[in-house]
Each structure stands twice: as C-alpha cells, then as structure tokens.
C-alpha cells in the first residue's frame, strides 16, 4: 500500500518538476501589469511600477 502510494507520489513529483521546467516557472515573485501604453518608450518617467517606493536597505555592518 505504502509502496504504491510512494510510487504514485514520486511520479507526481517528477511530473511536477518536468511541467515546471517546461512552462518556465520560477520561485521569484513578479508583478504583472497589462496594457502598458506604447508611449512609455518615449517617456519612461511616466511609468511607475509597484516597486517605485520600495524601502531600500542602505546599511552595512
């Protein structure tokens, strides 16, 4: 019983890895935005991503 469950589980893990690699998944978080106007190329300053007000680490030891 446990052998069968582990066999199915292991195959599922391999399948998930194959699918993730094929689809190009990543562990990084990325926000997406749709319909960004073409005018950004001419006026990059008009675009503000969600990261624009990120609080930066400026320390060091």
């Amino acid at each position, binding site marked *: 019983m446990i052998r069968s469950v*582990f066999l199915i589980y*292991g195959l599922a893990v391999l399948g998930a890895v194959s699918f993730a690699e094929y689809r*190009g998944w990543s562990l990084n978080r990325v926000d997406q935005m749709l319909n960004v106007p073409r005018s950004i190329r001419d006026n990059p300053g008009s675009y503000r991503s969600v*990261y624009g007000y990120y609080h930066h680490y400026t320390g*060091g*030891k």
Partner: protein
Amino acid sequence: MSTRGPAPAGAPQVKSLNCPGCGASLTVRSFGNAITVICSSCHSVLDAQDPKLKILQKFRVAANEDPPLIPLGVRGSIRGVVYEVIGFQRRTIHVEDIAYSWHEYVLFNPVKGFRYLTEYDGHWNDVSILRSLPELSAGGASLKYLGETYRHFQKADAATTFVLGEFPWQVRVGETVSVSDYVSPPRVISSEGTGKEVTWSMGEYVGGRDIWKAFKLQGDPPTPIGVYENQPSSLSADVRSVWVLMGVFLILLLSLAVGVYWMESDEQVFEQMFEFNTNAKGEASFVTNVFQLKGRTADVELTTKANVDNNWIYLNFALIDQDTGHAYNFGREISYYHGYDSDGSWTEGSTSNTVTVPSVPAGNYYLRIEPESDSDHGLIRYSVTVNRDVPQASFFGIAVLALLIPAGLITWRSLNFEHLRWAESDYGSAPNDGSLLSTVESITDSFKGSSGDDE
C-alpha cells in the same frame, strides 16, 4: 528437554460430573485427554485422570477476577479446524516489582488435539507446540527453526495466578516456570519449563478482530496497547522498497536534469552596460532597445552586476512586451559592503544579482530600468544580461526534498515501532542483525550514547 505435546485426542466425549469439594456439576469437554479440571464454583483443582476426581489444590479467587474474554465452551474455527475453548489461565511475571499478566486459552479438537491462544493488552497469539527442537545459538542470543532466525527477547519466571476449565497438564495456581521468548515477527518461539523439562511452542500474531470473527464473539475485541514482542510492523517491509524506489526516482530526476539542461536553450538575448550618476538630478529611468524572445512560453533570467563598493544601487525593472503592453515588474537591489573590525575583516552582500521572470511568452520586449541610490556616490556602472529558457536548479532541489521527507518519515515511523518493541525486551534496544533498519537504529543509539557520555 522435550517437544512432546499432548497426544492427539480420540473421539469427542463430554461428560458431566460432580465436584468432590462442593458438589457442583462439572462439564468435562476433553474427557480422557484432560489431566486436570478446575471446579468453577469452589476453585478446586481436580485430578481428571482419577475416577474420583481427587482434589489436588484449592485456591482463593479475588472478587474482581476478570472472566475470560472468550467464554469456556465457545467454538471457533482456526486454520479451518473447529476448536472449543476448554481452559483458561492467567500467568504473571514480575519485572522490577511490577506485575505483568497475560491470559492463555486452551483450545481442543478431538482429532487435532490441543492448541492455545494467548492475549496480552489486546495482542493475541495463536500458539501450538513444536514437534521438533529449534537450534539454539551459543549463549542463547538467538535460535534457528525451519531456516528462520529468532532473536532472544525476554526471559522471566512466570507464575500461574488463575485457572479455569480443563488442562492437558498438571496445572497448579502458584506454580512457576521459566519462560524465554525468541521473536521473528509475526512469530515467536517460547520455551517454558522447570529444570530439565522444557516445552517449546510457536506463536503467530493474530489480530483481535480475527479472533472475534473466528469465535463469533459479540462486541469488539480490546484495543491493543503498545507494541507487542512479535507484532508485525506494517512499515518494516515497506521501508526497503521505499528506499529502492527513492533511488530509482533520484536516478530519474538526475536524468531529467541532464535532459532539461541539454534541451533548454539558455540563450543570451540581451546584454548592455549602463552608468548611473548619483549626483545627477532629474529623471533616471530609461528604456533599452527591443530584443526578441523566441520559442515557447519559458522563463527569462536577468543578471545584474554593479561596481558597488560600500554602496548600493536599487534597480526597478519592467520587462515590457512592445506589441501587447504586458509588463513584468520586479526590483533588485545590489549592495556590497566590506570592512575591518575587532573580529577581523568582513563582507556583506554581493556585486551581482539574478532574478528569473516566470512563464514569459515569445515576443518583442524591452526593459524599462529605473536606478536608485544614495546621492553623491558618484558614478555606478552596472551591466544587465538577459537569458531566455534557463533551467531552474531550485526545482530539482525541492523535488529531492519532496522525495526525501516522506521516505524519511516512513523510516522514522518504522524505527520507532522497532524501538517500542525492543524497549520491552531484556535488552532495551534492538540488536543489529545487519538489516537497514537495525543499522540505522544502531547508529542513532551510538549518537545518543556519545551525547550522553558528553554530559
């Protein structure tokens, strides 16, 4: 030493007699085969071989004495043979002044003879007398029987503390015999005797529900408590095959990784050096030239390297599809600090950073980059490299963990089962028989031992 069991019985004879002690009627179910019979009214042990049923012993019974779980006279089928319960006894051993008792049921079939059931804390064994002697190892740590090795588990002096019904031997309350158990789950071989007379028997673990079904008993059997000496572990057999499967999966995973690294293009589609003047005022953001992402939907890896030195730069990125306006926003900080203090030299951070944007369809893309840093840090140079369809090693690491964790849990549970079993033995822990489990347990015990020594 003897392996003689009771001789096979003749035709069934049930006889009603009267107890010479109290006059109560006695039903003798194995007449001609029983050696002693106990009067359930006055608790006299009677000589069943004597026509006058001579009284051999009288014993006191506690008022709260538990009745047998399987009543005398009940019939049930074991291994296709119908047996009748004709006797019941309780035996008790003392370990470190604590009394442990188990129950034995004498079963009788006129053709097959006697058989026994034992019960301890809800654990049942189907017991029969051995017809040949097992081979004891030097020192008695193990024995061999029919090619199977049994490990010594426990030795104790067991006293008969309660009897009821009929017995094919001269039973007495208070009688003490030396018992030794050798286990090879689900079987146990037991020796019991006094002096030169030793009887060997083999028990096989049986589930309480099977006993209840065989004897058509009402209600539920008592729930087993703890792990019994010859209780089979449902996990032990699986541990080896799970690790074999684990090895197969790791080989498959390695093959998959080789295939993925071979098949995925990891093509560099963009690379450029940039400068950010932290002293400059005004808008810092800009866009790059358009570059093409080809093929199926795949990941995009962006690597940034900057010449920061006790400084930082934060880069707001937007990967934008020129045709659809679909933007992927992310920010990366590159900071690198170093110095020297009372602990010596130290460094913190890195001059490079990599981020992977997941599942980006093919198309024509450009980057919008907006650098930030503290002002008056001068010129920071940085490079941005974009690669398409890059294998992600992290998924393979997660897969190895995902396979190891359940295999480890199954192994731990099995080890725990064996630990609980052997904790009740004379040895406190399982001897190493060279198997995977016992080797792992020995290693674990040695670690425990060495940490205990340190204390």
